[in-house]
């Protein structure tokens, strides 16, 4: 068995004295692990860091084997990521979210979103909004996508400011007004307005929205708690925004 694909490194684990097991999010082969022999060498240590893009060749005798990777770095941004606490929190959160996906299951749209977000990790003005969208993307890929394009009650696509916590569909201000206490807020940057520079308050509302559905549909059914890196990222993002 052999294939070649591009991917973003999301995790690295030591294996023995000289090798590492690398966790890649690849374009066509999904989240895929493999052994890199000599991965702890000086030559490869800098390449095999989370947030770096690589070209990887995977080989194994049988498809179900762990297999070995040979990798070549294409975009090496880990050193830049390490300079920013927000970016580090971001890559940790991305890795935690991607681990919700089954291994070796291709999610091309999510991979495309990943390539955009890792490029913007150090930009604290852009990355948090992308992260909220990435979480929506994860929900969608897992089969729990939200419909934020039109009102669940009226079908209108104007003035969408709420989300039904039950159906995950947007609700307009007029239709949702009487039930506002029971509805989740839909920040403007996720609605049809697509606000370019959302405020920290909007970002927090976005994370609250995804948090509800991630917990209800993904984490709790699997008996998992929300990863601590998520709260740490949001806290860091708020701190940076208010600084």
């Amino acid at each position, binding site marked *: 068995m052999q294939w070649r694909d591009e991917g973003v490194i999301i*995790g*690295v*684990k030591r294996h023995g*004295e000289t090798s590492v097991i690398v966790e890649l999010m690849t374009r066509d082969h999904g989240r895929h692990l493999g052994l890199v022999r000599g991965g702890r060498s*000086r*030559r490869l240590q*800098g*390449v095999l*860091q*989370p*947030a*770096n893009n690589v070209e990887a060749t995977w080989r194994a005798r049988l498809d179900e084997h762990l297999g070995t990777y040979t990798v070549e*770095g294409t*975009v*090496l*941004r*880990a*050193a*830049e*990521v*390490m*300079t920013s*606490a927000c970016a*580090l*929190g971001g*890559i*940790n959160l991305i*890795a*935690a979210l991607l681990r919700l996906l089954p291994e070796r299951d291709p999610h091309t749209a999510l991979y495309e979103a990943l390539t955009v977000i890792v490029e913007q990790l150090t930009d604290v003005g852009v990355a948090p909004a992308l992260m909220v969208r990435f979480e929506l993307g994860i929900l969608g890929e897992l089969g729990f996508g939200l419909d934020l394009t039109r009102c669940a009650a009226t079908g209108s696509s104007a003035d969408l400011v709420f989300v039904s916590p039950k159906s995950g569909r947007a609700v307009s201000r007029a239709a949702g007004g009487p039930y506002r206490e029971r509805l989740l807020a839909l920040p403007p940057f996720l609605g049809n307005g697509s606000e370019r520079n959302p405020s920290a308050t909007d970002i927090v509302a976005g994370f609250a929205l995804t948090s509800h559905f991630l917990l209800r549909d993904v984490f709790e059914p699997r008996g998992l708690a929300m*990863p*601590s*890196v998520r709260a740490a990222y949001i806290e860091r993002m708020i701190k940076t925004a208010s600084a």
Partner: protein
Amino acid sequence: MSSDLGMAERVAGPEIERLIQLLARLPGLGPRSARRAALHLIRRREELFEPLADAMQAARERVVVCGTCGNIDTVNPCTICRDERRDGSLLTVVETVADLWALERAAAMRGRYHVLGGTLSPLDGIGPKDLNLASLVGRVVAGGVKEVILAVNATVDGQTTAHYITDLLAHTGVRLTRLAHGVPVGGELDYLDEGTLAAAIRQRTAF
């Protein structure tokens, strides 16, 4: 017919086989090199085997973890914490005892250390409570420390830990520094990743 047909035959008694098995568990040694090491020890019984056995026995009985810094030594507090010639205002935070030993080999820092015992690692489920962080804060808050050097690895986990410690110690007012990132000795620019090169340029020094 023998039940262990097909398995490698034993060439030595159970004590020697046991020795080989245990040596093979050491880092860098496999079954073949463990066999060579065992043979070497047996051949040099008086000059190596017996002193080694004695040294291992003594170390096993006396090794303790320093209650102050997390270093390992045969005395508590450790030799470094007891050394009054060291600068108590300079505290270097390292991930493991191996890192402490590496810095001591470099002899570039005459302060004291604090061994975390690892790094924050969401992948491995290692959180702040699993690290030697409470005692670090305690040492800094107790006073006398003016600068904390974060000498953690230049990995995502290492730097995540460094940022966490920075937040943890922010209220104490001590100076927080970290090791420079840049071109290693013997490194060729052509082979360095873009991030390291950018960091090296940013942290350039007067020549």
